[in-house]
């Protein structure tokens, strides 16, 4: 099935199974994270000269959006420092399980076993983002809050509850990890069927039961697998593999499509559009409205932002879905229970969540195109800051006085256009595939192409809007 088992390579397997490479990366990441907090609090208040701002919001962001997410999916979660202190307390160990950890180990409430809290957390950060991205102190406080909430979650709940249900970054990494060309999967499910201990979920002396509360034998999508590699360590039958696979494989899989993830797709796509207008557009009044939190202008901006994310985009998309369903031949009206459940989204709820997954490649492309402009223009702020992280006049690497230079300014617009076009075509292809999966009504002929065409038109309209903002 088009897979290359990377863990067949002994070196890769050993490196992933061993706890050391991961621990070293995590410790380095944690050191950088703590330094970013420290620099934010005690360093220069000028954002573009403060290590905390530049290292996190330009350096880390570039690495995450341009490399880690598109190529490694949740690879970042594997080395993320934020849950680390809490996890160590919870497990009472730095490496293999030993002794007892701290914490109440409560089950995460059933009602909250979805990503709505993550959706909310992301929107909350997004509403204040112009300040968080530019004020070192605010940025440091936000990062500290992440750390404190993650520790609290580890002490109250079992496993990595923060990552799975709260982290505002983890939500979109999970959504976009579906496109990544790597996956962690069970090799042979029949081996699992006869393995009663299920150590990959329960844990063993070799490692922890899945910290992400995922049942590895049931994995079909990357979304909630944090690639922490614990199951590689705990499976006594060596039945887990990291595979190389075609990009976007998970998008074609109809199982597990849900409304919370669909809205994550709208939130991310909408935010990319708003950020492109606010941060890269020529409109000063928008920038100042987004910056002056609490002012009337900001309230209007916030209301506009929320309306765009939660009403306008999903509303237009719903109209496209409804049009497609009408043209495509699906007419039957639901009755009874189904009718009351679909009150909110009319008769097309299932098609709506299904087609929303076409927005995954579209949204990822939008974020990459936005980030390319922002990152290449500003990454040169990183060199002086690495030499003088606290702004105390140091010159560790001899780069302290390098001045700001935007890179690749001639190539960036073409690059952005190609990325956006790639996203659009990929989204169109995904929507056609999803249309093929829509259940046929017994009496009606379904015409998948007609169902998909309005979705493709929606994606094209968003892409043209982004082209207008980013390269026109």
């Amino acid at each position, binding site marked *: 099935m088009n897979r290359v088992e990377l863990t067949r390579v002994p070196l890769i397997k050993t490196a992933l199974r061993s706890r050391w490479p991961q621990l070293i990366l995590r410790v380095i990441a944690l050191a950088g994270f703590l330094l970013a907090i420290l620099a934010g609090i005690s360093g220069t208040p000028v954002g573009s000269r403060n290590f905390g701002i530049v290292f996190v919001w330009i350096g880390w962001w570039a690495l995450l959006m341009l490399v880690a997410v598109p190529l490694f999916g949740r690879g970042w979660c594997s080395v993320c420092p934020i849950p680390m202190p809490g996890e160590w307390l919870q497990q009472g160990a730095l490496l293999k399980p030993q002794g007892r950890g701290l914490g109440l180990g409560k089950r995460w409430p059933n009602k909250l076993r979805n990503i709505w809290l993550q959706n909310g957390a992301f929107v909350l950060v997004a509403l204040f983002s112009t300040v968080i991205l530019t004020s070192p102190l605010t940025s440091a406080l936000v990062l500290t809050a992440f750390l404190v909430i993650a520790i609290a979650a580890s002490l109250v709940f079992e496993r990595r509850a923060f990552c799975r249900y709260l982290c505002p970054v983890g939500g979109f990494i999970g959504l976009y990890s579906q496109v990544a060309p790597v996956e962690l999967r069970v090799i042979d499910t029949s081996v699992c069927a006869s393995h009663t201990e299920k150590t990959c979920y329960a844990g063993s002396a070799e490692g922890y039961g899945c910290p992400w509360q995922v049942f590895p034998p049931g994995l079909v999508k990357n979304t909630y697998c944090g690639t922490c590699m614990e199951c590689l360590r705990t499976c006594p039958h060596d039945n887990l593999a990291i595979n190389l696979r075609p990009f976007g494989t998970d998008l074609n899989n109809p199982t597990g499509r849900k409304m919370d993830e669909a809205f994550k797709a709208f939130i991310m796509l909408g935010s990319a559009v708003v950020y492109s207008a606010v941060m890269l557009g020529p409109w000063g009044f928008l920038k100042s409205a987004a910056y002056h939190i609490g002012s009337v202008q900001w309230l209007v901006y916030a209301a506009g932002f929320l309306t765009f994310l939660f009403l306008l985009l999903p509303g237009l998309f719903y109209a496209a879905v409804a049009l497609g369903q009408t043209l495509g031949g699906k007419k039957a009206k639901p009755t009874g229970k189904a009718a009351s459940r679909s009150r909110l989204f009319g008769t097309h709820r299932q098609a709506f969540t299904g087609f929303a997954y076409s927005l995954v490649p579209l949204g990822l492309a939008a974020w990459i195109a936005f980030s390319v402009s922002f990152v290449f223009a500003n990454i040169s702020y990183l060199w002086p800051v690495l030499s003088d992280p606290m702004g105390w006049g140091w010159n560790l690497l001899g780069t302290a006085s390098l001045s700001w230079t935007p890179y690749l300014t001639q190539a960036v617009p073409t690059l952005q256009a190609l990325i956006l076009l790639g996203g659009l075509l990929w989204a169109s*292809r995904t929507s056609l595939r999803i249309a093929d999966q829509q259940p046929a009504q017994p009496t009606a002929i379904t015409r998948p192409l007609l169902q998909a065409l309005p979705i493709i038109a929606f994606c094209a309209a968003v892409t043209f809007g982004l082209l207008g903002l980013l390269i*026109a």
Partner: protein
Amino acid sequence: MKMLPSSLMNKHWKWGIFILLALTILLLPLPAQSAQASEKYIQIQASSYEYNPGVVRVKPGERVTLELTSTDVTHGIYIDGYNLEVIAEPGQTQTLSFVADQTGTFRLRCSVTCGALHPFMTGKLQVGTNALLWKSIAIAALGIAVVIWTVRT
């Protein structure tokens, strides 16, 4: 086409055609936009964190002189693509002259750290028609047709 072993090959040649066409569109020179030998003076006022006007339009080949004035703190303009820069202290107008010999849209960015939103202080220079935009739209239409063609056959 009976020789082709699988539907995969079938799709590959369609994408091959698309990539060739897309590259042709992308690299195709547009009918030369008549170069103007005229001169153009544009006054730009910089204040935290915007340029006024935010979008500057000139004709290809024009000799452009930007007169930058700052109303609050020191601001600069860096023109993407042209890689030119001018800096103005408050109250002191500085000029930058150049020939608009590249067409398209180029970002103007403030080049002097001027405050919190400095990295977001941007404007635009538009020289002639934005070929990249129109070419992108053409490629998008073509691409969608190919996607439908490959998925539905």
